[in-house]
């Protein structure tokens, strides 16, 4: 070979200009990885590296294929089913046949798809599935050192290129032609993808790193062995917003994200309000037939907190602690947070003070305590915020509390409001230490509330615990309308506590009730002896809050789930006082007024007078009969509880399915001023579709 020619050829290798879109995508991916690496360096390992999440195969079968399911749902159910079927066929051929055969299977499938004139998204699906098979998922890799020197350490597998949508520029037609030309001869197909979707934006996080504490559903207890049930109330609503968001994206939420009590308590119920501030709430008890198991009943407890009249509202001393780290750089995070804050500003009285502390790479005060009347100054400070840098939450927390402390007003509500997507990395990185800190500060009179934003990196567990330790609520804000609900409509509930350490204890009458099961509140369980112990912390109630708890009970004589022990003492021998013969149970509520340290007690018997014959209205025939139906609030909360149980895959749902939930909720829409109940019904419909897809 001619040396000169070789030299010339090699020197003149014609390198094309890089494609801008491809470059952009590579940069974005690298930046996202960069963030992941930075986070990993700063703290202990907290999840999967970005790469493994981007390779299609690796998150298959996790039940979280957001893109896939969303597309399918929006493409229409019928379409979706067809695609799933066809994919199924070609998958089978692939596993048994050769590479070439797989290609022709592709074509057959695609031809079928074209004939059916399906939505372009459907075709993407096909390729996505194919792509998932072509590439093997890489092994997780954590070596940062010497990555370049050693071949082994550079385990990067090919990027999932074919999964990028190709439908954007009318490509499907061209592509089909290309493939028709290549025929079944097995000429390699080269997809020229005209327009890449820039998938991950900087700071993008695929789902699957959201952290939820895991818990088991409450089990059935027998009254003879455990007659008393105790739990702390929970007015958080974060779970419902998170679940809603996931379902709206076409996936069922992870089971641990579903906390039934938070879903129920998301909605406002029109329970009878208490008259005075001193006895700040009133329980409303109803017993209805259980929709989950014939013969069982539901014991429904609704509590309405005292609502402060506008002129009674105490002054607020608020310090906002805002996360402006790089991960907040997404439309549903920092920008939403800013807008939410602006909404909240509207509800404050001119006398209230607002301060803002931000934390990212470093923590800093961006707004010294400022009167709400000086709105421009506050808005200006808000507008200047931008996301960048890593998260130093703990340092920020110290500063925020310091500001709140400096400006402490005994008469006012002193509260730190933390807004974040959930990561605290620097400073007090130990969650336990952080919780202790918040708890100490709570005792000094500064409370903490948590507003959660975004997803993918959402640390639900820590947020819940922080809010609980800080006597505040944890809410999840996924949209501006949610921000409105929490910060405007329910501002007084969010800001002004009317009672703290609220505990509920139910003492079941063994003569009437054989078994019981508390729906939800798994994470709020208390021991029997904690009820009277004022040192034990529990949940708080804000002004006008409603709290609902539901027990499913099996009356004595009903079909029991748990058998008595052979040696158990027969009930006859321990005959309860006859005066209680119409009492199902005895309800006790303990609470402390916000500025007091000793608890008060509210009690009420649950009797047959509280019983309603029907849960649903359409099961009654005569007017007289219908009077004895449960009211809309009870019905609706039971519908929400049923939905929660279905989402959790509860074994206690019985024959009730999504349609049953929709039917029940339809009969309970009441006034529904803001449309939350209507939205719920839609959500159940979406979940039904998502569940059907997940089964396939």
């Amino acid at each position, binding site marked *: *070979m001619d*040396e000169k*020619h*070789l*030299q*010339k*050829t*090699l*020197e*003149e*290798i*014609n*390198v*094309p200009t*890089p*494609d801008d879109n*491809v*470059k952009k*995508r*590579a*940069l974005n*991916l*690298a*930046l996202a*990885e*960069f*963030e*992941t*690496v930075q986070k990993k*360096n*700063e703290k202990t390992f907290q999840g999967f590296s*970005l*790469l493994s999440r981007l390779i299609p195969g690796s998150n298959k079968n996790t039940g979280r294929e957001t893109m896939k399911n969303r597309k399918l749902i929006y493409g229409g159910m019928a379409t979706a089913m067809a695609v799933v079927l066809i994919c199924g066929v070609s998958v089978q051929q692939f596993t048994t046949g050769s*590479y070439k055969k797989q290609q022709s299977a592709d074509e057959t499938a695609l031809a079928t798809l074209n004939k059916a004139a399906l939505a372009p998204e459907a075709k993407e699906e096909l390729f996505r599935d194919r792509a998932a098979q*072509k*590439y*093997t998922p*890489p092994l997780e890799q954590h070596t*940062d*050192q*010497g*990555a*370049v*020197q050693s*071949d082994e350490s*550079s*385990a*990067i*597998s*090919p*990027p999932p*290129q074919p999964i990028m949508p190709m439908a954007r520029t009318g490509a499907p037609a061209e592509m089909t032609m290309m493939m028709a030309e290549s025929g079944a001869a097995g000429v*390699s197909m*080269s997809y020229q993808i005209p327009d890449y979707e820039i998938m991950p934006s*900087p700071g993008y996080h695929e789902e699957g790193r959201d952290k939820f504490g895991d818990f088991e559903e409450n089990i059935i207890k027998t009254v003879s062995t455990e007659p008393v049930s105790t739990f702390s109330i929970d007015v958080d609503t974060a779970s419902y917003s998170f679940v809603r968001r996931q379902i709206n994206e076409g996936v069922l939420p992870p089971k641990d994200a579903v906390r039934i009590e938070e879903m129920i308590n998301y909605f406002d119920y029109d329970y009878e309000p208490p008259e005075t501030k001193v006895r700040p709430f009133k329980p409303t008890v109803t017993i209805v037939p259980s929709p989950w198991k014939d013969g069982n009943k539901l014991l429904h407890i609704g509590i309405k907190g005292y609502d402060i009249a506008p002129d009674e509202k105490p002054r607020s001393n608020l310090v906002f602690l805002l996360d402006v780290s*790089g991960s907040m750089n997404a439309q549903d995070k920092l920008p939403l947070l800013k807008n939410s804050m602006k909404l909240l500003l509207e509800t404050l009285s001119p006398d209230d003070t607002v301060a803002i502390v931000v934390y990212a*790479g470093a923590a800093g005060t961006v707004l010294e305590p400022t009167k709400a009347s000086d709105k421009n100054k506050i808005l200006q400070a808000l507008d200047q915020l931008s996301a*960048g*840098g*890593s998260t130093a939450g703990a340092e920020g927390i110290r500063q925020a509390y310091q500001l709140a402390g400096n400006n402490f007003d005994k008469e006012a509500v002193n509260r730190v409001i933390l807004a974040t997507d959930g990561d605290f990395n620097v400073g007090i990185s130990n969650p336990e230490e952080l919780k202790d800190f918040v708890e100490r500060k709570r005792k000094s009179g500064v409370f903490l509330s948590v507003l959660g934003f975004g997803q993918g990196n959402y640390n639900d567990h820590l947020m819940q615990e922080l809010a609980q330790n800080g006597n505040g609520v944890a809410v999840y804000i996924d949209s501006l309308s949610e921000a409105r609900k929490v910060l405007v409509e329910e501002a007084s509930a969010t800001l002004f506590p009317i009672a703290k350490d609220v505990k509920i204890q139910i003492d079941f009458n063994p003569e009437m009730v054989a078994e019981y099961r508390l729906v939800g509140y798994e994470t709020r369980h208390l021991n029997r002896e904690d009820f009277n112990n004022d040192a034990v912390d529990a949940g708080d109630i804000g002004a006008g809050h409603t709290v609902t708890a539901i027990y499913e009970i099996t009356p004595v004589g009903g079909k029991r789930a748990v058998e008595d022990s052979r040696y158990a003492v027969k009930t006859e021998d321990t005959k309860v006082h006859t005066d209680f013969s119409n009492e199902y149970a005895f309800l006790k509520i303990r609470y402390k007024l916000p500025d007091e340290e000793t608890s008060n007690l509210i009690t009420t018997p649950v009797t047959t007078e509280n019983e309603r014959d029907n849960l649903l209205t359409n099961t009654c025939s005569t007017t007289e009969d219908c009077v004895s139906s449960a009211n809309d609030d009870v019905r609706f909360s039971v519908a929400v509880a049923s939905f929660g149980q279905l989402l959790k895959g509860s074994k206690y749902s019985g024959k009730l399915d999504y349609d049953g939930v929709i039917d029940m909720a339809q009969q309970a829409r009441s006034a529904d001023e803001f449309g939350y109940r209507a939205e719920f019904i839609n959500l159940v419909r979406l979940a039904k579709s998502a569940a059907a897809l997940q089964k396939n």
Partner: protein
Amino acid sequence: MNDITLIKRAVKGDKRAFEALLQENYDVMFKMAFKYCGNRQDAEDITQDSCIKLARALASYKFQAAFTSWLYRLVLNCAKDFYRKKKPEAVLNDSHIGAINAEAEIKTYANEILAQVYALPENEKSALILVMSDGYTHAEAAIIMDCKESTVSWYIHEARKKLNILIEKEPHHG
């Protein structure tokens, strides 16, 4: 801002600096990758892998070698991994040879030479491209390839030998 400053900042966690560094070097990396594999598709993939890899590996750059050399080594490693992962049949079918025709419209003879070059064993191909196409000295190529200078010389020698033999088999080009 020069690369060194950017690297130092990026290693400290400055995302903007890292982004600037990528902006600055993407084209160079793409060029390296393209020369190694000879087709756009693979070059894009390899470059993307390299960018992601850079996010993880940057901290291990110790400012001893020139950054470009270090980067080249990273791209070459990514390229090797890329082909190791790719199915052998896929490599044969749609990788180099066909792609050269479509991508770089160079004349037939050069095309054939390139086809032969791309058929060489990895290290010989890398050495040949580094020295004859990029104009690195054997010593510089050795740094990039993380081997001894004499080894580079040996690779080039072997490559030449193979190319000669292969080409002589085709009397048409003599």
